[in-house]
């Protein structure tokens, strides 16, 4: 199983992170995010439910992708954000940059 998995659905792409995002995953995450955004679906849902820890590299890639996505009409949505990751986002004020839904189901309902 790869660290990241990208799946295409009608209205959105779904990028799932299968483990915590460590410094050496930054390049992989960047590649997957760029690929997903280039497909220009209206939404890119990022499932972080298996992510217990996210390092600054991962956060920076998400912020970069959010900016790229906006410029190309792709909205990033985070789902399954764990308590510790949510704390990091709140601490840095990044929760205001992203749309965050508790679960994938909520996100699907939210965009439909």
């Amino acid at each position, binding site marked *: 199983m790869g660290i990241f998995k990208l799946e295409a659905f009608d209205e959105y792409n779904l990028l799932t992170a299968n*483990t*915590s995002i*460590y*410094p*050496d*995953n930054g390049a992989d995450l960047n590649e997957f995010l760029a690929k997903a955004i280039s497909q220009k679906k209206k939404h890119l849902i990022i499932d972080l439910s298996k992510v*217990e*820890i996210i390092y*600054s590299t991962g*956060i*920076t890639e998400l*912020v*970069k992708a959010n*900016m790229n996505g906006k410029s190309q009409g792709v909205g990033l949505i985070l789902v399954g954000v764990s*308590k*510790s990751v949510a*704390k*990091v986002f709140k*601490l*840095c*004020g*990044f929760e205001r*940059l992203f749309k965050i839904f508790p679960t994938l189901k909520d996100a699907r309902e939210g965009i439909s």
Partner: protein
Amino acid sequence: MFAIKNLTPADLDFIRKHLVQQTIEKNVVLFEAGKNGDSMYFVEAGTLKIVDRRSKDGSDDHVIAVVKPGGFFGEEVILTEGGVYKDTVVSLEPCVLYKLSHDCLQKIMLESTLTGTKLVLGISKNYREAINISEQHGKLIALVSAKDGVGKTTVCMNLAEAFSRRGKKVLVIDCDFQLGNCHMHVASPATPNIARLVQLEERLTFDRISKFIITKSDIHVLSAPDLPQDAELITRSHLNQIIQECTRHYDFVFLDVGCHIDEISILFWDTADQIIMVQKPDLTDLTRFKRLMTVIKRLNYPKEKFVGVLNQFESKKSGYLEQFKSLLPIEWLKIAADRETVETALFNGETIIAHASASEMVLDIDKLCQHLLLEKNIDIKEKTGMFSWLKNYFSGS
């Protein structure tokens, strides 16, 4: 200029344009604890001290940290709601500072979200690390002494054996990074070790860490480096990751902590659920323990966090027990002196429990093990200390 990773020279120039330079003279109180504010500071030149001010004139200041050029302070008012400074900051010499206010940060974020993100991630590093170490599962027990040669490693390794014989999954991390020798107790060379781990593995997940753990019977050891100079390779961030991963996979993680006071030792004291103070009944140990306690008392750990162990105890030295009790009024357990058994066991690469299971020393270690396993003793919720303060401060508790 700033001790923040990942900022390019262009990022630095961009950030600097938004900051306000401020010059202050020696002995100026820049801000006081409890006061509201909206700015943090980066030090360009000069030195400042962060203090816990106990009297108005500062005569009883307790220095928490010293900030040098490249460092920063006051980030709590940027990162947390309410904007209240936690400590008082006083200049030790004339200083040149750069001031970053909430408004400046917002402007930076608006003009370049990416540079702003890097800046925010840099100033929040300590807080983020504290958040990451908060989700532990197994218990973390640090063995601390005021002096080398008191038998701390022997107690540590034998406790580990006693715990594993009770069905607990136990790991010993040799945290005396320059001269640690836990590996000798399991008859192994100091390879693999923690320095090789942090050098070879970029991602410190448990599956990677486990490749560097020495196993003998049921005792697992993450050895100290085989070369003292390799201690430099191990950072606080590495240790946070290793401790976090290991406490998820072991019931008990023992830290055999080197007997000096530095940032890394304080990290171990703070993150430990319990601290076992291993001392020897003699005058030098008593005086050094007294000095160590002047530091530890300032960290406001709850008394329940400590267990005292008077190692190499002989009845003719029982007077020392009261002396140690007066310095740290907690329960002190004794471990009988048995130099010959210790040395023979070490030569055989065995623990004393494996070598001489009926000895008085083993019975004492067993008592200590039972004491530690009592639930009331191991369920220490309030840890306090510097890193715990960061966690509590952020969570608003």
